């Protein structure tokens, strides 16, 4: 029983702490997330691709013997 009380007390303390967290509006948070994306998009290989000269895994052209 006592341990239950202690667990509950801990939970209350944690919730109090979380209730006092400073928050910003979602609109502002979204703007910041999108801004970060846009700023770093140029260096993102998944978005821009990788040039053949820089690609360590590029496929070598097969030799043609005539």
């Amino acid at each position: 029983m006592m341990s239950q009380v202690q667990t509950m007390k801990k939970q209350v303390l944690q919730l109090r702490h979380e209730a006092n967290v400073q928050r910003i509006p979602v609109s502002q948070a979204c703007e910041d997330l999108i801004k970060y994306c846009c700023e770093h998009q140029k260096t993102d290989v998944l978005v821009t691709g990788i040039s053949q000269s820089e690609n360590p895994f590029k496929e070598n052209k097969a030799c043609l013997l005539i």
Partner: protein
Amino acid sequence: MSDGGSKTEESIDALMQEVRCLKLKLEEERKKLSDVSLSNVAQRLENLSLQNIKVRRVLKGHMGKVLCLDWCSDKRHLVSSSQEHAITMPTTWVMACAYAPSGNMVACGGLDNKVTVYPLNVEEELTGKKKTVGVHSSYMSCCIFPNSDQQILTGSGDSTCALWDVESGQMLQSFHGHHGDVMAIDLAPNETGNTFVSGSEDEYMFTSIDRVLLSVDSVRMKSCDRLAMIWDMRSGGCVQSFEGHEADINTVRFYPSGDAIATGSDDATCRLFDLRADREVGCYTKESIIFGVNALDFSISGLALRIPPATERRGLAPDLFVSLSVQVGSCLRVIATTR
């Protein structure tokens, strides 16, 4: 019933009441600032056309399912672990592995409950130089080197995370708060590097006392709040927690700016939680995706969220490589299906 008993009952009652009030308050506060949705804001952006992804190398050697891998900082080496019985490993399932920042050692662990380091710069046999750094009371599910070779952060099935000193094997900090197995951890990318996130299979236990039917007997109600928690590494305290997933969280990752986290779960969704808005800002699903998400990662810009295949566990062909990409805030689609 003695006086002591009824007092406890009263105080539990009062505590229950406060928990309820605080939860409501939290919900209200979060709602108040939810003025738009990320998907609305992101609508003004162009749709991404992501690069096709090709398989360039197939690395063979494991005999069982590969559970974890990590890159070396030299970008040329990988460490991987699997659920087979390897000669050098002490256990059958090695659930987690991590490369040290210097590239000179790797850490791993799993069903042996331990986190063990193997130095890589020795000529002799690896097993002779291995060293157990820490021991949990249940399996070790994830490990990571925070910033240096000197410390290891682990997550475990015993519902805790722990920070260990590699040299002495001492536990520097433990993190209590989860109620279920910790499945994943990730470090904040910020230069301070003092926070990390953990995801778990928490099934929150609420204790309620039904005074009409049972005088002091407690009734346990399970509400399955699968939590992602943000921790302060110095104090060991939980800073924020996020709920929303309907099943176990398998994987967590910080957004590259450090302002948000993404989670992947057995409920077949990925979610994005913003730390500063203190709430969920995105949920990514696709009708055809019915499997749990086992791993995810952001691209460098944070624009794409990559989810590797999560199908093998359910018995689907493991060689059918399906990779998915999510544009943060808008849609989810398959970008490469290669055999």
